[in-house]
C-alpha cells in the first residue's frame, strides 16, 4: 500500500539544549512571581508582560536562533524549543514577545530587507518590540486567500484600506504584519497578495477591541483608512505574500503551545487530588499525563525532523489536531474526577472554576493556527485522499 508512513522518530534534545533548560528554569524561578490562581496564568503566551519580555531579552532568549548581528544568539532551533516549553511549563507571561519571536522575526529574517532587519530585529531580541499578525478578515475565516484589504501603490508607498480581525495584541504591540492585496482583484485569490510591515501608530490605522466570550481583550479589529505605508515596509517581493504566509503557517502547528495552553489545569488537578488519591483517580490523572507526554514526544520528534532538514507538515498537523483534542478533553475529564476525588471542598470549588474557565476557552484552540477542519483537510491530502 502506498500511503505515506507516519513516523515520529524518537528524538533526544541535545545536551546543550538540556543545559540551557536548567538555566531557563533557574531564571524563571527567580523572576516569576509565585503561581497564583488567576485566569492570567492559564495561557502563558496569551498573557502579556513587557517587563518579563525585557528580562528574557536580556538573557538573550528571544530570537535565540538569529544571527548575532541582529541581536540573536545563533543557537539552534532546539535551544529555542527548550526555552519555549520552559516558558509554557512554568506558566511564564510570554505574551508580549511571543509572536515577534515565533513568527514575525523569522519572517523578516527570511524575506525582509536588510534595512528592515537592522531596524527591527535587535529591538525584538531586546524584548522591546512586539508584533501582531494581520491575516484574517471579516469574511475570510479559514479561507485566508480571500483577502480584501487593498494596498494601492502610490508614490513612495501604498495607500491601505480594509479591515483585519482577530488581531491578537494589536492594542499593546508595536507592529503588525498584514497580508494585503497589492494587485489584481478579490477573485484572484492567492495572486497579487503581499505582506507589509505596519507601524500600529500609523495615521489611518484604527484599533478596536474584539472582546472574547470570557470578557477578555486579546483580539482586535484593525482598520485601515487611507493609511500610508512606505514602500520600505513591503516585506519580500510584491505578490509573494501568499507564499510567505503559507511557509509561516507550517511553523505554527506542532510547537508545545499547541498542547500546553491549559497545562495549568493539569497542574492544579495534581494539587486538588492530594498526595494520595484513590486508584481510580490516579488512573485518570496518569492517563492524562501519558497523553501529554506523548504529545511532547511527538512535538520533539517533529522538531528533530525539522532540525534534520525535513518538512514534516502532516506530522505537525497531527500534533496540533491531537493537541486540540487533548486540551478540550483535559478540563472536562479533570472536572469530573475532581468532583469525586478532591481532597477538600474549598480546593474543589476553586478547581471547578479553573476547569470551567479552561473549557470556556477551549473553543479558541481550534481557531488558532488553522481550524480543525483545515487541519484535517491537510492530513487528508497527506493520506492521498484529496
Amino acid at each position, binding site marked *: 500500500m502506498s500511503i505515506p508512513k507516519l513516523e*515520529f522518530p524518537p528524538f533526544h534534545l541535545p545536551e546543550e539544549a538540556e543545559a540551557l533548560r536548567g538555566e531557563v528554569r533557574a531564571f524563571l524561578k527567580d523572576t516569576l512571581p509565585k503561581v497564583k490562581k488567576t485566569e492570567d496564568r492559564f495561557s502563558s503566551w496569551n498573557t502579556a508582560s513587557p517587563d518579563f519580555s525585557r528580562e528574557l531579552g536580556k538573557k538573550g532568549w528571544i530570537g535565540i536562533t538569529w544571527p548575532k548581528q541582529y541581536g540573536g544568539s545563533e543557537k539552534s532551533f532546539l535551544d529555542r524549543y527548550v526555552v519555549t516549553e520552559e516558558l509554557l511549563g512554568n506558566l511564564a507571561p510570554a505574551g508580549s514577545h511571543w509572536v515577534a519571536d515565533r513568527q514575525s522575526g523569522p519572517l523578516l529574517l527570511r524575506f525582509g530587507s536588510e534595512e528592515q532587519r537592522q531596524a527591527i530585529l535587535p529591538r525584538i531580541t531586546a524584548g522591546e518590540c512586539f508584533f501582531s499578525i494581520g491575516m484574517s478578515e471579516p469574511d475570510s475565516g479559514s479561507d485566508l486567500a480571500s483577502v480584501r484589504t487593498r494596498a494601492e501603490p502610490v508614490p513612495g508607498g501604498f495607500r491601505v484600506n480594509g479591515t483585519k480581525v482577530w488581531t491578537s495584541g494589536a492594542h499593546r504591540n508595536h507592529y503588525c504584519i498584514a497580508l494585503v492585496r497589492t494587485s489584481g482583484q478579490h477573485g484572484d485569490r492567492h495572486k497579487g497578495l503581499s505582506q507589509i510591515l505596519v507601524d500600529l501608530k500609523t495615521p489611518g490605522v484604527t484599533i478596536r477591541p474584539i472582546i472574547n466570550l470570557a470578557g477578555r481583550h486579546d483580539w482586535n479589529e484593525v482598520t485601515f483608512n487611507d493609511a500610508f505605508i512606505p514602500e520600505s515596509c513591503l516585506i519580500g517581493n510584491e505578490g509573494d505574500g501568499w507564499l510567505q504566509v503559507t511557509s509561516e503557517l507550517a511553523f505554527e502547528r506542532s510547537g508545545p503551545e499547541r498542547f500546553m495552553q491549559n497545562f495549568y489545569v493539569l497542574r492544579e488537578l495534581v494539587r486538588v487530588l492530594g498526595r494520595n488519591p484513590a486508584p481510580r483517580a490516579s488512573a485518570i490523572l496518569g492517563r492524562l499525563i*501519558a497523553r501529554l507526554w*506523548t504529545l511532547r*514526544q511527538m512535538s520533539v520528534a517533529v522538531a528533530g525532523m525539522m532540525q534534520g532538514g525535513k518538512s514534516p507538515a502532516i506530522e505537525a498537523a497531527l500534533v496540533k489536531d491531537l493537541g486540540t483534542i487533548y486540551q478540550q478533553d483535559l478540563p472536562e475529564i479533570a472536572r469530573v474526577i475532581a468532583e469525586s476525588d478532591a481532597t477538600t471542598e474549598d480546593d474543589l470549588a476553586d478547581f471547578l472554576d479553573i476547569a470551567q474557565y479552561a473549557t470556556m476557552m477551549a473553543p479558541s484552540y481550534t481557531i488558532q493556527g488553522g481550524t480543525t477542519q483545515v487541519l*484535517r483537510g491537510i492530513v487528508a491530502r497527506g*493520506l492521498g485522499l*484529496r
Partner: protein
Amino acid sequence: MDRDTRDMLLETADRFFTERCGREVVNSVEKGIWPADLWKEIEEMGLPLIAVDETKGGVGGTLADMLALLRLAGSHAVPVPLAETALANLLVGAAGGQPATGPSTIALGPLSLAGNRLSGKVERVPFASVAERFVTVVNGTLAVVARTNAKISDAPSHAGEPYGAVSFENAVCEFTGTSAANAERALELAALVRAMQMAGAADKVLATATEYSKQRVQFGKPISTFQAIQHMLAELASHVAATIASAEAAARDADEGGVPAGGSFSIAAAKSQCSDFAQKIAAISHQSMGAMGFTHEHILHHYTRRLWVWRRDFGSESFWGAKIGAAFAKAGPDGLWPALTASKYAA
C-alpha cells in the same frame, strides 16, 4: 545489530510475513489450527532468538531490534507467539539460561516460588494453549515451566488467539535463575512489547481504511472524496500517530536503559497511551468501512480485534495510568513539569 543489518532483517521479515501470514493463516489459527510450518520457518529465520546473545545461538540483537521486529509483526497480525517467545528467550538468556526451540509464552501474575517449585494461577496467558513452556519472573527469579507441568484452561482471546488460564501446582521448573529483569520490570517489558505490536497494528488499520476509501465507490465516486470520510480518516491518523510515537519513544528509552531497568515511566505512559486510543482507532476505522469491515472475510478485524485484546494485555491504560498518577500525585504539582520533560516518574 547495526542499522543496516536491522533494516535488512526487517525487510526480509516483512516479505516473509506478507507471504506467509496471509488472511487464511490468521483465520485458521482462530479455528484452533496451529501453523506448525509457519512457526518452524520463523524459527529457522532466528526471529524468536533476535535478542539472544550469539554465544547462546541467538541473533545478538538489542532490545530495540526485538521491538522493531515485533512492531512489524504487529502490522501483520502474525498469529503465533513470536512476541512472547522472543521476550521469553531474551529473559531466559539474560538469566543465564539457554533458550529452547518451540513456542514459549510469558506468564506474569500472582505466582510463588519455593525452591524450584512454582505455584499459583495466571489468567489470560497469551498463547497458553500452544506454548511449550511458560516463562515467569517471581520477585527476582526467573523460572521456566514445561507445558506438561502446568494446567491449562483454554480461553481464546477476542482476537481468536489461543489464550488461556494457566495453573501451577507445585510445578517443577525446568530452569530457575537470577533474572536480569525483576517481576515488575518483566511486566514493563511485556507491556512495551504490546505497545509496539499495537503501533504496528494501528499503522495497518490506517493503511487499510485509507486504501479502502479510495477503492470503495458510493453514489458514483470513491468514498475518499466525501469530506466526512476524509475527516474521519484524518482523525484516525492522529490517533494512530500518537500510538506509534508513544511506543517508539518508550522503546528508545527502554533500550537505552537496557533489560534490567530504564525507561520505566515512558513504558507506562506508552502503554497507557496505546491502550487509551485503541478503541478510537478501531471504532473510526470500522465506521469508515461500514459493513465490509465488519465481516470476517475482510482483514480489518485481524488488527482491530488485536488492538482490543492487546490494550488489556499486561496492564490496561487504567493500570499503567494508576502507576503514573500515584507517583505524580505524591510528588505534587511542582514535580509535574520537571518529571514530564525528563520522561521520568515524578519523585
